[in-house]
Each structure stands twice: as C-alpha cells, then as structure tokens.
C-alpha cells in the first residue's frame, strides 16, 4: 500500500516523512538505548514505549489495544538506571528514557466473582460476600503506586471496607482495568473487578434514576412518535431540508428540563 500520497514527498522537503503510526528516524535525530526484557535497542527519543518497540521490529498481538491510553492493554513495568523504584505506565502513553529496562504485563490472572445485578442487595455486605479477600488488604499502597491512571486504589478499597460504596464508585471511576493493581497486591485482591461491581451497584441502585427518561421510553413504547418519524423517512428532500433549516435551536443557557420550543407538534 502506498502510504505517502497526501504527505510531503522527499523531493519537496528533502526529508523522510512518517505516516500513519510508523515512526521514522529523520537525519540527525537522536536515539537513546532502551532494554526490552533486558535486550538493548537504539530508539528515537520522544517515541512512546509502544512505538519504540515497533520501531525496532516488534509486532504486538497482545500488549496493544486502543493506543490512546484508555483500554488498559499495554501495562508496562520499568526501572530506570540507578533507581531502585519500580515504575508503571501504559506503553502507548509513556515516553522512552535512556537506559530504561522494561517489560509489558499484557495479562495478569485475577479472580472475578459472577453475580446477578438484578438480584444483588445494594449493600457493602454483598460486596464482602463476593470478595471476602477485601479484608486481606494490609494498606501497603502498592496498588495506588502501580496505577497508571493515578487512581487512589487503596483509598477506594478502604472506602468499600468502610461501607461507603458511593465514595468508592467515584474514586474508582477513572479505572481502565489494566490489572497492574492486582499484579502488585500482597493481599491478592482483584481491585479492579471489585470496583466494577461497586460502580454498577452505585449506578443502578444508589444514584437517583432519570424520571424524564422513564417517561420518554413509555412514550416511545406507546408508539407516540412512530407516525411523525415514518413521515420523515418518506418526505420529499426539499421539505426535509426546509424542516431541518427551520428547526429551532435550544438556547445554550436554557435550564435543564424547562425550555420548550414554540412549535410543540413534534414533541
């Protein structure tokens, strides 16, 4: 496949151009050494770990997903030269550093309890019953230190132990379920599965429900809009365009649920 047709050519700028996600090394660009599972490679500085590994020839099956920092497929552990600390990050979001030693952890086993969301009691006790290992937490905080999303993992586990599911749901909201917390847990907890259970209990039973939504679904089920929508599907193009252009725009500052258009025939 020709990858460069809508990009400047070598003649135009006398430089090689990267396309898609393929990085190249333009003349004069600097490289740094990194160690992938102990093996040394020279990679362009400023690349992410993921692109650096691809640059030197790795092709991922596991260990790559959204490539945008939200799916949790590319968990990576690394150490820097002369630093005892373990560092954690997503390969697609973390920039290479000279002499870093890294490995990906694309999968880590974790216990997940099956439950029925329709029948579960929305209480902390239900969570304890499904995950008794919660009480093996020794507050070592390794989970929080490992989280690439800066979620206060230990704090949400503490909140669950304190019976505060709402607090745990909010604290854990940014979790991408990469599993690094579980990989570091000396109590062997599957933190991210527990948090998912808590968030669903919160969303279904604790957060107040949207009454206007319930009403709208009833209206739709009653067939209220079937006629006017069907008419649109059969409408002459000119008439359709006219209606589109003439449709009134809800003001930006309208209060929730209060503004109504002048023409209410189609509500």
């Amino acid at each position, binding site marked *: *496949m020709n*990858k*460069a047709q*809508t*990009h*400047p050519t070598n003649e*135009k700028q006398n430089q090689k151009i*990267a396309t*898609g*996600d*393929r*990085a190249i090394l333009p003349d004069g*660009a600097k490289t740094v050494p990194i160690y992938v599972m102990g093996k040394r490679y020279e990679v362009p500085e400023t690349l992410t770990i993921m692109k650096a590994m691809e*640059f030197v*020839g790795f*092709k*991922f*099956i596991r260990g790559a997903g*959204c490539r945008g920092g*939200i*799916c949790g497929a590319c968990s990576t552990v690394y150490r820097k030269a002369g630093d005892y600390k373990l560092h954690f990050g997503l390969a*697609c*979001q*973390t*920039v290479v550093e000279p002499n870093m030693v890294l490995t990906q952890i694309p999968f880590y086993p974790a216990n997940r309890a*099956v439950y029925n*969301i329709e029948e579960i009691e929305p209480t902390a006790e239900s969570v304890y019953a499904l995950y008794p290992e919660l009480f093996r937490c020794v507050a070592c905080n390794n989970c929080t230190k490992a989280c690439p999303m800066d979620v206060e993992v230990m704090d949400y586990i503490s909140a669950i132990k304190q019976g505060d599911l709402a607090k745990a749901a909010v604290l854990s*909201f*940014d979790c991408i379920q990469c599993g690094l917390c579980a990989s570091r847990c000396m109590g062997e907890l599957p933190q991210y599965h527990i948090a998912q*259970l808590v*968030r*669903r209990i919160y*969303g*279904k*039973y604790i*957060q*107040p*429900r*949207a*009454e*206007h*939504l319930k009403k*709208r*679904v009833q209206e739709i089920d009653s067939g209220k*809009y079937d006629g*006017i*929508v*069907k008419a*649109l599907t059969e409408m002459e*193009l000119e008439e359709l365009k006219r*209606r*589109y252009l003439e*449709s009134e*725009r*809800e003001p930006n500052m*309208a209060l*929730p649920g209060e503004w*109504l258009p002048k023409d209410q025939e*189609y*509500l």
Partner: protein
Amino acid sequence: MGYTPELKELIKRVEATRPARIDMARRGENFPALSLEERSEVLDQYHPDYQKEGRRMVRVGPNKGELFQNEVADLLESRPMIRAEGVDLSRLDFDTDILIIGGGGAGTAAALMASEQGARVIIATKLRHGDANTIMAEGGIQAATQECDSPYYHYLDTVGGGHFTNQPDLVAALAHDAPISIAWLEELGMMFNKHADGRMKVTHFGGSSRKRMHSAGDMTGAEIMRVIRDEARNRPDRISILEFCPAVELLLDEDGKCAGAILYNMETREFYVARAKAVILATGGFGRLHIRGFATTNHYGATMDGVVIAYRAGVGNKYLYSTQYHPTGAVYPEQNVGLLITEKVRGLGAHVLNVEGEQFCFPLEPRDVESAELIREAVEVGKGVVTPTGRVGFWLDSPMIDILHGEGTVRKELPAKYIQFHRYGIDISQEPMLVYPTLHYQNGGIQINDQTRTHIPGLYGAGEVVGGIHGENRLMGNSLQDIITFGRRAGTRAAEYVQGVEIKRLTLDHVVAFERELRENGIVNPVIAPVLLPDYSTEEVTSRRWQEF
C-alpha cells in the same frame, strides 16, 4: 521533555508574527475564507475523499465498478488467508446458536440481548474483549430524552449532518431506540453524568438543535464498554468469549444461509471451524488502514475485516469511500499523535500557521475544507513543520487564546487538552500545538436494513462496520448510540431467527468462487486479508527479514 531545541527555534517564527496577527484579530479581521468555488477546488484537489488519485475502481465483487480509496480497494480485491478448498468443514471446533464477530460495544450489546432470549452466544474477537473504538469515545451518546426534544428532532439533525445522504430506515431506528438504549444502560448500572435529582446532564454539540449529548465523565465510551462487558462476564453459561480469535472467513451452508465462520487463533496460528445458526458482524471500522497515510484516532485492530469477509460472501457496502477526517489531530509529542484537538481551539481564535509562522487558511472552514487546506500546504507548498519522529504538522497557535480572552482562558476552556500536553512538558497557553488532519471514522460499511439484516439469511451487522446510518458525515455522539441501538437490535433479531433454523452442509464455495473471480479479472498478487493488525516495522527492519522474501 517538551519541544526539542530545533522545534523551539521554529516556534520563534510563530512568536515573531504573533503581535501583528493579534492586532489583526482584535480589529476583527481574518485570513480570507474561501469562496464556494475555491472550496470545491481545494476539496477536489486535496481532500482525500474527493481526490481522483489515490482511488481506483474495484474490479470484482458486489461493488464492482465503483471507486474506492486504494487501501480499501486493495482489501476488497484481496485473497484469503486460508486455502478454501483444503478445509475440512465436517470437523466442528465450535457449534453455537449465534456467533458474534467483534467484541466492542455493538458485539457485546448484541450478545447481551441474544443471551436474554436464551440463545447460546460466542463472541470471537481479535484483541481483548472491549479493545475497540467504543472504549475510546470520550464525548458522549445522543438520545432525545429531554422534554423539549423528540425522535423527530434527532432524525432531522442526523440527516442534516449527513447532507441528507443517510439511509432513512436506519436513521428512524436510531432515533426511535436511542432513549431505550440509554434506559437500558442506566438499568445495567452505568454511571451517567446526572443532576442531583437524577436528571441526565445533556449538552449541545456540532449540528444539534437540542441538548442531546449524554455523558459519563469524559470517558463515556469506556464506561459503556466496562459495564456491558462486565454484564457479559456475568453470563458464562450463555456467553463465551474467544479473545485473539478473529474471523477470517464467513461460512455459508449449501442453502446459502450464513452458518458460522473460520476463526484464527492469532497466538497458536491455528484455524477453527465455528458453526452457528446466525452470525453478527460487529468488527468496527478501518482507521488502521491509514488511508492515504493519515494518522488515526482508531484502536489497533481497526482494519476493515468484517467488510472484507462479507464482501467475499456477496454482501456489498455503501459510502465506504467516505471517511471522516478531523482537521486538527495532534502530531507531537509522539504519545499524543492522533489525539483530537477540538474545533473549540480555533473557535477561541487560534490561528493555523505554517513553518514560517504564516497563516495560509481561514481557521474555521468546514472540517473537510480545513483538512484539505492543511494537506495542500504540506503537499503542494511544502511548508509543513517536520517533527523529530518524521511527522509533518502545522502550528495551532493556542497562546493567542489567553492574549485575546485573558490569562487563564486556555486552562478554563480546554482543561483536558491542557493536561494532556502539560503531562509531556508543553504548556499550550504559552506554546503552540502541532497538528495535521487525522483519520477518525469509517462513514460507510456493509448494507443492512433497520432490523440489521443483510441480504444473506442469518447474517446481521451492527456498529461501525455497517454503512448508511450517518450517510456521508456523522454527527458526534451518534456512533456510540448506533453501536447500542443496532447491537441490541442485531442480538434480538438473530435470537428470534435461530429458532427453528436448520444448518445444512457447510461450505466455503463462495470463497473459492471469489478467488476465481479475482483470477478471471486479471488480479495478480492480491494482498492477503483480513490484514488483522497493521505492521509498523520500519523499512530498515523489514528489509532485513530475509526469510520472508
């Protein structure tokens, strides 16, 4: 890290022209916008969708004779991974009611609905369950749930945004089911952004007549995916999930009904025969084909697999030539490549500048026009900025925003973008961003009707793999909604269909026939597809893979 010394040197040129440009902006003067004629000229010459070059006619299959982007055409004219004649289809590795190909939002929603009706479901997915474009959608999901709104207006906004090219029955289904989808997600325990009394928080978006965008933090798609994936995992008795097992060919039975697929275990490189009474294609889009070399916002597996295997089985597509490019995707730093830089930045007054720090376009042209102008400046004029990783981009002069609207405006109005750059040592209220058009969405796809049926009995489609819902241009928030609406419909319809269906002898004859058609049309050395995953090895590396030549 921040900008390299070389790029910092180039930023001085931007700073040099800035005072004069600020004065100009304060006088209310703009770089002249294009006339309608000039617009159509730049679109014709430089917008990837309009350009004659980079496209060619497809010579085989249901869309024979139509023009497609080269990358798409190559795959429509591709040859299979397997030798179809040599496969023993009498030995079944899997036998189920419904096979769902793709484990993103649409496939998972379909699995939940089908399993509720008692169907046994297998989800075969190429990456992990949930690694999909669904999880990446940040903005929100549309539905007419408010008192001032109704499916009528949702329909009108959707077809207006699609330049009236949308397939009417699909839009009607979308507008009808949208509130039902939201209620379903709420019932499953999704954490929507709500007011204290439970009312959904809703906002406007480009092309909306009503505030209709529902959200969950700024990770709506991720929250949807987490919740429905968790629910699928609660039903292990009815839903099995095969990860790293994409489908590489559809199976038909001797009556011509869809009857399963050949799956490929990417880790052991084995193929499996999976028989099913119905198949739902939910394989997503094609961003990772990097059409015409563009970076993309899409996930790693967006390689058009579903369109390819459906094509060989005789299912054509519509609007597949149409691609949504967003004019300003980040090209620096490397970890932000493909990241969308919202139109709001230009709306607040930031100029788009070339390597000399000069304006070359009106910053608020329609998206397709704006993209074309950036491409022209790079390709024809050759005044792009080249990054250390060899990308080309243009300056988006965000520091103008604080100068024009007061200090702190960038942080207040663009908090997420500020953080995403600040993390890498770039303060976008002080330094400009580097941007280039980025490939965002596959507007077209396989043809279905409002019940998600293709013309092959037992074959259904849902999600980005299908075409027609959005016509030639999709509105924000309609993709997450179409995933749920049509995913749910596909699961329900397929579960109804499998009642009493009897699968006859399995066959891959359609694949054999397709290969014959390739040969008869003189197509030599076709690429092998589905391509499954892009290969980002450099030429330097591939040239050393001697055993593969």
